[in-house]
């Protein structure tokens, strides 16, 4: 099959899933079968594109141009390939998890949930493969709008408030900052196509270039650079599967993915090195990493702690991209995948704890590791990956970031990475310690719960295993990341 047909399939399958899920909505077993089948098919299609990209063959398709010169076009490059692989693989795992969670908690409106999920995945795939900023922007907004019903799933006052924050910040930043930046790029350079080496060099002066960089960084609200991060903890009111896939993988990764795309293919690393504002942006990202970690330390709600951890980890990617050395850019690309696996494990563990034990607070978790050894074992692996220790994949991306920082002599970045590693350890290790080594506080007799339902466990173990496997066999991921920077 040609590359173009594969792209159309990759976009079309999840879009096709949405109406199919709707049609069989009142028969839960068939509905879930549709989700799983199409998710599996999507993964196969994405994997079929992989060898083409590794071989350096062009894979692209253009669907039309609403405004002359502005194409709706898709073209696969290494970074997008990483994002698409991660999103399509984790859609399967997450669907298994969702089935256990949504049924285990008797959530209402499940059909709508799966429909919106499928649309969000389609938007993520489109974003991953977008050939230019315009197509990317369309998919970016589609992702925001399709996840809004998921965030507000419970439809109560709290969900409505969170939905306002979510939409207000994401749409506000994208319409108010990102879109003007894109149009300015278009007016100044005559192009919005992602091009190797960037399109700004020689066309945009340093002052305007600096302003544009800030507009992009803050306009991409999904990357949660402070103070644009508030939507992320707010969105934690959603059911856990939503937090798991969308706020560990699709939505937030769409944000940092866009940041890396813009730095590599719009600005170009060489152009950014000349830009004083790039250093300022690096400090902003470093500030976000540390501040978010400190806030995470103080959160007792487990999901909120994970949310602030995400804010901090996202800025790792932004900072790594702004170190502007090829090695750190590889680190940024790898961290998109690595953090996705680690963080989805953590969120799913939080969901498992909630489903089995109805506990949401860190302080309630003493001794829970003995009742839920698989869940907390997976949680431990995810946490180790977040901290960046072997044998979890987090080590690899941090390793590349540090190498890059030394290569570019960005010692500020080195200090930030070291400090934040300590902070990560400080907010994750006590949880693991309490879960396995402290005695149970409620005497263990109030309600005897064991592990969460089997689908939840399967999903958890799969992503935890993925985190370890990615450490042991990073081959393809490294190869793609190397292609991104031409190594």
């Amino acid at each position: 099959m040609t590359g173009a047909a594969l792209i159309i399939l990759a976009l079309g399958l999840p879009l096709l899933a949405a109406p199919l899920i709707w049609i069989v909505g009142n028969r839960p077993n068939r509905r879930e079968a549709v989700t799983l089948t199409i998710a599996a098919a999507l993964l196969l299609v994405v994997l079929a594109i992989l060898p083409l990209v590794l071989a350096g063959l062009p894979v692209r398709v253009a669907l039309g141009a609403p405004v002359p010169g502005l194409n709706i076009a898709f073209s696969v490059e290494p970074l997008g390939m990483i994002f698409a692989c991660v999103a399509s693989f984790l859609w399967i795992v997450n669907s298994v998890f969702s089935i256990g969670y949504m049924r285990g908690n008797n959530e209402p409106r499940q059909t709508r949930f799966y429909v919106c999920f499928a649309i969000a995945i389609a938007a993520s795939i489109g974003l991953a493969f977008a050939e230019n900023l315009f197509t990317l922007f369309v998919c970016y907004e589609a992702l925001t709008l399709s996840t809004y019903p998921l965030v507000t799933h419970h439809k109560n006052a709290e969900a409505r408030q969170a939905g306002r924050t979510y939409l207000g910040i994401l749409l506000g930043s994208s319409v108010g900052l990102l879109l003007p930046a894109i149009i300015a790029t278009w007016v100044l350079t005559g192009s919005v196509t992602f091009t190797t080496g960037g399109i700004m060099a020689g066309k945009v002066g340093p002052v305007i270039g600096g302003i544009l960089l800030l507009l992009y960084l803050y306009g991409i609200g999904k990357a949660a650079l402070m103070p644009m991060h508030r939507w992320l903890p707010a969105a934690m009111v959603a059911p856990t599967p939503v937090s798991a896939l969308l706020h560990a993988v699709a939505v937030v990764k769409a944000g940092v993915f866009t940041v890396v795309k813009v730095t590599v293919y719009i600005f170009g690393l060489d152009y950014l090195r000349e830009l004083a504002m790039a250093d300022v942006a690096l400090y902003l990202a470093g500030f976000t990493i540390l501040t978010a970690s400190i806030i995470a330390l103080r959160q007792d709600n487990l999901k909120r702690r994970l949310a602030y951890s995400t804010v901090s980890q996202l800025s790792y990617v932004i900072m790594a991209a702004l170190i502007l050395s090829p090695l750190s850019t590889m680190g940024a690309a790898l961290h998109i995948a690595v953090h996705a696996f680690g963080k989805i494990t953590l969120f799913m563990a939080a969901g498992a704890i909630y489903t089995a034990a109805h506990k949401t607070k860190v302080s309630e978790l003493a001794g829970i590791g003995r009742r839920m050894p698989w869940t907390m074992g997976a949680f431990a692996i995810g946490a180790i990956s977040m901290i960046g220790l072997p044998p979890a994949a987090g080590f690899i991306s941090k390793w590349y970031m540090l190498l890059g920082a030394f290569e570019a002599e960005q010692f500020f970045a080195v200090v930030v990475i070291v400090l934040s590693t300590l902070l990560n350890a400080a907010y994750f290790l006590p949880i693991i310690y309490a879960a396995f080594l402290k005695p149970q506080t409620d005497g263990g007799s109030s309600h005897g719960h064991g592990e969460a339902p089997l689908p939840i466990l399967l999903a958890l173990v799969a992503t935890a295993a993925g985190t370890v496997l990615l450490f042991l066999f990073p081959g393809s991921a490294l190869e793609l990341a190397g292609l991104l920077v031409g190594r």
Partner: protein
Amino acid sequence: MSGLIGDLLAHLPALQVVVPLAAAPLCLLAGRAGLAWIIAFTAAVAATATAAALAYLTFHNGTISYHMGGWAPPWGIEYVVDTANALILLLVSAIATVVLAFCPASVAREIRPGSQHLFYCMFILCLTGLLGIAVTGDAFNVFVFLEISSLSSYALIAMGGHRKALTAAFQYLIMGTIGATFFLIGVGLLYMMTGTLNMADLQARIPAIQDSRPVAAAMAFITVGLALKAALFPLHLWLPNAYASAPSAVSAFIAATATKVSLYVLLRFTFTIFGANFAFLNLPLHWVLLVLAVIAMFAGSFSAIFQRDVKRMLAYSSIAQIGYITLAISLASSAGISAALIHIFNHGLMKAALFCAMGCIFYRIGSTRIEHFAGLGRQMPWTMTAIVAAGLSLLGVPLTAGFISKWYLVQAALQADLWWLVILIAASSLLALVYVWRLVEAMYFKAPPAGREDVGEAPLSMLLPTLLLAGLNIYFGLDTRLPVAMAESAAALLLRGQM
């Protein structure tokens, strides 16, 4: 046979006005609502076909000049159709057709049985006036048609069910008459100075006398008069009451077309007759329009946020959107005029869809107050889908028509090196997010109030036109060839040999 078609084609500009004009008395004579509707609808369909043919001809063969009654201009009245007014003609007649398709059920519910045929008579007369304003190449003729459309719309608004409709219509009548009078004074001054009313002649003679005070005064009178009719801030006070109190179908039709036609006339007088050099270099029209437009964008959106009645909210939103169009005009560049015409077209589609949806809701629950929207997301899912689609277009979300408008507007601002304007446009779009989202939350997040019986969708005859209009908002976000090509051609014509 080909001779007959050839004759027909030659008389298209006249037929554009004559067919609906002839239909108006027929509606009156018909005496019954059903028959009057058939006559009005047939005339609107014919007008749309005529407009489509004219758009095709002007786009491919260039400007058409038609001599009314065979009298050569400047003695006779000349009709001139180029791509600028062909686009307006198409918008006005197509919206009229769709809204008329929407009418029967809505009118049966909102207008007294005895006067329904009068409603159709007034409706088609209003259409005649708006088409006439757009098609004519004669300055005084513009005034005549302006009065036809205005008088019939006063009557239409007064037919609104509530007593407030009468005061709203009266307020509009006073303001509209002042506007028309100002316009007439301006045209009179021009006639005094040049001895002609033909637009092409005026264009040729004004440069020689453009430093004289009466010409400047004429320009001022005409601009203020048209700004009143177009509801440009601060002359917009008549608009919210009029839109909110009018029958649903009238709100949909007038909101989508009436102010747009006035803006077209403003474009025509500013660029074709006075010339951009005179208006923007000799007189400070640039700053006058720009400042008022920016205030309109914010004042309109802010007021919209605080409205309890959704029709009023949409009316205030219109004031903001008129601000966008005026802003684009004030840039006085080819990109700016294109953006203005594109937004005239796209905003017509948005507001027609939204006001039709309001008609559907009023049909079922008898109110358009936001607190009564609770629970409608579940009970009228298709109407709500239309509102969300048109609302997203109003925000300017990509793949909707509204995005295309914003894209061209921002690009025009950047070309004029007005960076700060881009920030203001983005900020006022965010205000639109607030009022559109108030609506979404009211529809989807609240349970229906206790005591209201379970309502369903409006009849298909109302729902389908609403969905069609909402769908067009998406369609013209994807396939922009028609409005963009027409607007760019029109901008080139309007600016020919100037600036």
